[in-house]
């Protein structure tokens, strides 16, 4: 497919995603929406940490940084999964446009990529707001030192990691899109299953070493584990961290995820055409 067609499809999808997600509210309400949810999420884990630490006698700022960065960057998983699981359901059952998009010369895959990019944009806005408010609440409000040297962040490494991570999460999103095409009404639970699993095993708010052995194996197989490790390093530059090895693992898990994602999606589209699922209605 011509690059021009792909870019046009992505551009249209981003625009459509923006319209669909913002048309229910005015911009101020919409901005609050993208602020409140992640900030409240951070406050929950922050207070669990703080109350637990106070009861046990000591607050460890390094551990707080672990969960602060982990939870803040997890927003990419939340937004991409949410966008990609809901879009098949919404476009097929509610707006009834999926079949028309499928029929257009630009492919459905690139349309989905465009919609997911919309989720990435939303997540980036949420991330910046969460980091800012998190610092305000925890450092200045509750007195936990935020050990980030904001002028010394390794932006090159951070950008590369973000790019690789986003591609990974989109690939997982393609698996979910594929499953959603073949099924109906499971979008909510699928999203929760996958996001929840990544949250539990990905070393987001607690050290994966606390997991039982089998849990640690799962953690080691997930791209998010390496993604968050490198992101943390680019902020905190902790001692003996092997960046290259972690990047290598991230790339390897990314390639595996892409292969699985595209395979599942391809099978799903084949089944959808065979069984007439592209314009399937949903009933409750």
């Amino acid at each position, binding site marked *: 497919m011509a690059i021009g067609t792909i870019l046009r499809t992505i551009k249209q999808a981003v625009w459509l995603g923006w319209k669909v997600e913002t048309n229910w509210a005015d911009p101020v309400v919409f901005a609050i929406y993208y602020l*409140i*949810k992640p900030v409240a999420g951070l406050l*929950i884990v922050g*207070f*669990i940490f703080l*109350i637990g630490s106070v009861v*046990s006698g000591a607050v460890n700022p390094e551990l707080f940084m672990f969960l602060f960065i982990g939870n803040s960057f997890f927003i990419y998983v939340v937004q991409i999964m949410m966008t990609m699981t809901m879009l098949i359901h919404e476009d097929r059952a509610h707006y009834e446009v999926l079949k028309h998009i499928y029929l257009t010369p630009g492919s459905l895959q690139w349309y989905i990529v465009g919609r997911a990019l919309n989720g990435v944009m939303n997540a980036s806005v949420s991330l910046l707001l969460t980091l800012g408010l998190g610092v305000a609440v925890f450092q200045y409000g509750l007195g936990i030192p935020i050990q980030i040297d904001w002028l010394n962040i390794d932006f090159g490494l951070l950008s590369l990691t973000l790019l690789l991570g986003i591609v990974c999460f989109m690939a997982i999103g393609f698996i979910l899109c594929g499953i959603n095409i073949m099924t109906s009404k*499971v979008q909510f*639970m699928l999203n929760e299953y996958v996001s*929840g699993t990544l949250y539990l095993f990905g070393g987001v708010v607690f050290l994966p070493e606390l997991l039982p052995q089998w849990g640690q194996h799962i953690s080691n197989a997930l791209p998010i584990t390496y993604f968050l490790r490198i992101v943390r390093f680019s902020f905190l530059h902790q001692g003996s961290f092997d960046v290259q090895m972690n990047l290598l693992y991230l790339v390897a898990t990314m390639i595996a995820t892409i292969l699985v994602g595209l395979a599942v999606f391809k099978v799903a589209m084949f089944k959808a055409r065979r069984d007439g699922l592209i314009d399937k209605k949903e009933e409750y």
Partner: protein
Amino acid sequence: MKREELVHNLKVAYARLWVRLKGGYREPEWLVAELVIPVITLSAYVFLYKMVNAPPEYAGFVIIGGTMMAFWANVLWGMSAQFYWEKEVGNLEVYLVAPISRMAILLGMAIGGFVNTVLRAVAIFIAGILIFQVPIAIYEPLTALLIFFLTIGALYALGMMFASLFMLYGREAWHTASLLQEPIQFLSGTYFPTTSQVVPYMVQLLSSLIPLTFGLDGIRKVAILGQGISDVWLNIIALVVFIVVLLPLARLALNFMENLGKKEGRLTLRWQ
């Protein structure tokens, strides 16, 4: 309300309850999802407490919070938001044209939803207790049950009020409810005690406006900390006040919203 009218509306509530139970039974994949998904999230919070070496009863707080969240989720998505789905498929129109009280429909949904959720909540509770070996210390089971049912009453009364918003504002209400999930979990102290000295006064003040806060605090006290009725009588009074205020308010809100919808012509508009 006359006697026949009352009997008629009770029949309606029963019929809606029956649909709820049948529906729950016929979609077993949801039964599994509603057990496994909360356990996954709860596990992360339990590990977080473990990371900072908090005492084991804090894991119990998380499990209690997760169990009660099952009911809150049912109130919000299975009952309030259900009105929105009913509107989408055309059922709301049929309800509104029928000579019935809207509260009867909501009552049926609430009881049906509660029965379905009890199974899940118990499963979450048992799974959590077993997996994380949380110490349970219930010395006054009747007090525990009283607090539990009062919490449920207050939550479903709140849900009935939200239903009126969903009836008219559909998508906006949907987003608002989704938006409020985390803030409610934070403010109600679902996973940590809001009475802790670490929690700022303003947060404690805001949290006292949510019935779930009093319920969670009471259940934690009688189920994990081994306390009795003398320690939770304030919780009981607060929950009773919530129920007494919220139920008539829900009825008023439903009538108000229905009337507003009829005036603005939004009552049967779809996917706004």
